[in-house]
C-alpha cells in the first residue's frame, strides 16, 4: 500500500509542475520590487532617472548611502527609533507579561473583571480625536513618552501570553509556593523563564510595530524635529519624490548624483535591513506564537 501511495501518476507530476510554476511566479512578485530597490540604492541617482535598472546597478556608487547616513535628521531619527524600539519593547513585554501572570492566577478574586476591562479595549476605542485631546492634556504630545506609554499594555499579547502560562503545569508554581515563594519570585524565577518562546513572539511583534511607526510621530510630535522617526523621515522623502518640483530643486542643490528617489531607495534598505535580518531566526517562535493564540493579529 505504501508503494502505491508513493508512486507518481502523470496527474501528480502535472500538479507538481503547475504548483511549482505558480509558487515561483509568486516568489518573483514578492522579491522583484525589493531587489529592484536594492539595485537602485547602489546606482548613481541621475543615471537611474533614465530607467532600465532591474536587478543590478548600472553605475555603481556608495553615494546614496553616504548621503543618507550623513543626513542629520536621519541620524536623529535613527537614535529615536532605536530608543523607542528598545525601551518600548522591553517595557511592553514586561508589563504585558505581568498582567498575563496576574490574570492566569485562578484563585484571584477579580480575575474576570480585570480580564474583561482589557478585552473590551480590543473592540472599542475612543477614536483619534478624544485620544489626541487626552495626550495633549497629559503632556504626552511633543514628548518621547507618547511612543512608549500608550501602547504599553496590549490586550491581544496579554491573551496570547495568558494562554501560554495556563499551559504550564500548575505543580511548578505550587511547589514554589510551598517553599514560601511570593508572586514576584514565582513570576520572575519560574514563569518568565518558561515563557521564553512566547516572549520572543510578543517582543518581535512589539519591536516591529515600534520600528515601523510614523503616524504617532506625525500626529503628536510634528513640532519636535528631535523626536522624528525613521519611517516618518522616509515618508517625507516619499512625498518629495512624488512632487516633481522638489526633485528638480534637490538635484540642483546636491552634487547632481543623488536624487530623492535614489536616497529613498538607500533609506529603505537601511531602515528595513535590521528587521529583515532578524525575522528568519525568530520564525519558529512567531509561528508557534500565532498558533498558541489561535487568533491572528
Amino acid at each position, binding site marked *: 500500500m505504501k508503494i502505491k*501511495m508513493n508512486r507518481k501518476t502523470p*496527474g*501528480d507530476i502535472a500538479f*507538481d509542475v503547475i*504548483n*511549482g510554476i505558480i*509558487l515561483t511566479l*509568486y*516568489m518573483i512578485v*514578492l*522579491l522583484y*520590487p*525589493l531587489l*529592484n*530597490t536594492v539595485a537602485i540604492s547602489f546606482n548613481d541617482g541621475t543615471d537611474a532617472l533614465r530607467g532600465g*535598472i*532591474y536587478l543590478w546597478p548600472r553605475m555603481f556608487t556608495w553615494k546614496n548611502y553616504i548621503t543618507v547616513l550623513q543626513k542629520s535628521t536621519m541620524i536623529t531619527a535613527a537614535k529615536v527609533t532605536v530608543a523607542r524600539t528598545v525601551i518600548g519593547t522591553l517595557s511592553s513585554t514586561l508589563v504585558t507579561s505581568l*498582567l498575563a501572570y*496576574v490574570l492566569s*492566577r485562578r*484563585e*484571584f*478574586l*477579580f480575575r474576570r473583571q*480585570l480580564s474583561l476591562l482589557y478585552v473590551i*479595549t480590543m*473592540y*472599542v*476605542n*475612543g*477614536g*483619534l*480625536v*478624544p485620544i*489626541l*485631546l487626552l495626550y495633549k492634556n497629559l503632556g504626552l504630545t511633543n514628548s518621547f513618552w507618547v511612543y512608549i506609554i500608550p501602547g*504599553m*499594555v496590549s490586550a491581544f499579547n496579554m491573551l496570547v501570553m495568558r494562554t501560554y502560562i495556563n499551559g504550564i503545569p*500548575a505543580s511548578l508554581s505550587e511547589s514554589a509556593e510551598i517553599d514560601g515563594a511570593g*508572586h*514576584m519570585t514565582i513570576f520572575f524565577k519560574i514563569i518568565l523563564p518558561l515563557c521564553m518562546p512566547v516572549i520572543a513572539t510578543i517582543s518581535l511583534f512589539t519591536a516591529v510595530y515600534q*520600528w*515601523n511607526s*510614523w503616524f504617532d510621530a506625525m*500626529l503628536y510630535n510634528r513640532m519636535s524635529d528631535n523626536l522624528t522617526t525613521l*519611517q516618518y523621515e*522616509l515618508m517625507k522623502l*516619499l512625498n518629495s519624490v*512624488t512632487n516633481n518640483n522638489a526633485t528638480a530643486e534637490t538635484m540642483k542643490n546636491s552634487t547632481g548624483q543623488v536624487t530623492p528617489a535614489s536616497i*529613498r531607495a538607500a533609506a529603505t534598505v537601511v531602515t*528595513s535591513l535590521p*528587521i*529583515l535580518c532578524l525575522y528568519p531566526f525568530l*520564525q519558529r517562535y512567531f509561528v508557534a506564537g*500565532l*498558533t498558541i493564540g*489561535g*487568533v*491572528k*493579529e
Partner: protein
Amino acid sequence: MGDIMKEQQSAAVVRLSKDKHRSSLKKQLKNQRTLILLSIPFVIYAIIFCYIPLGGWLMAFEKYKAKDGIFHSKWVGLQNFTKLFSDDIFLKVIRNTLAMGIINLVLGTVLAILFAVLLNEVRLILAKKFVQTVSYLPHFLSPIIVTGIVFDVLSMEHGIINQVLIALHIIPKAVNFLAEPKYFWWIVGLTNAWKETGWNSIIYLAAITSINPDLYEAASIDGAGRLSKIWHVTLPGLKPTILILLIMNVGNVLNVGFELQYILGNGLVQSVSQTIDIYVLKYGIGQNNFSLGTAAGIFKSAVSIILIVVSNQVAKRLGEEHLF
C-alpha cells in the same frame, strides 16, 4: 474559546478545593493582597488610556470648543450625526471604506488559503522552507516602504507593471494607474494581499498539519488524486479555521489601513481613496472640527461592533465555530 473557559473553571474548582486543605486562609489572603496590589496600576492604566477617551465621545453630541472644554461646550444632540450623513463626502467615504474592506477581506482570505494549500503540497522540504520564509518578508516592511514600492512598480516612466503589460501587448502604451479612480480600490487590495498573504497563511498551514493523516490515506485508497484530496479533505478540514477567522476579520473590515490611501490618494482619485480614518484626520483634526471627527469615529466603532456580533450570530445559527 468557550471550551477553554469551561476548562479553566473546572480547573479552578478543583484547585480551590485542594487549596482549602493545603494552605491556611491567612496565606490565601496574603496571596490575594499581592495580586490586588499588582492589578491596581493596570486598572488605572486601562481607565486613563482606554476608558477616558470613550468619555470623549460626549464631544460628538456637543458643539465642542476648546476654551469651554468637554463639560461646558454646548449640547447639540444628534446634530453632528445628521450633518455627517447629509455630507456627500462622508457618504462616499463610507462607500470607499466598505468597498476596500470587502476587497481586502475576500482577496486576503482566498489568497492566504490558496497559498497555504499549494505550499502544503510541495514535497521538497528545503524549497518549502524557502518559499515560506520569503512569503513572511513583506509583513515586516513598514507601510511607508510598501507604499514607496507601489509608486515604483506602477510608475508611468519605468514601472515594471507598465513594461510587462506593454511587452505582453495587453496595453498599447503606459497607463497612469494611480490617476485612474477605477483602479484605486484594486491597487489597495492587491497591495495588502502582496504584504499579508504569507503571514495570513501561517494559521491555515498550522490547521492543515492538524488534519488527521488517515483521511488522506483513506482518500488515496479510494483512488483520489491530489486535486480531489485538496477538495475533499484539506478544504473541509480548514472550514472551522476559515469561519472563525472570517468572523474576526469581518469585525475588522472597516480597518482598511491608512498609509496607502493617505499617501497614494492624490487629488485625481480622492473621491474613491478617502476612508473614514482619513476623513477624521482631514476634517476632524485638520479643520479643528473635533465634534464631527468624534462622531465619525463613533460611527466606525458602532458599525464594527454590529458586524462582529452579527457574523458571530450567523456562525452560531449555522452550527459552526463561534467566538462568543
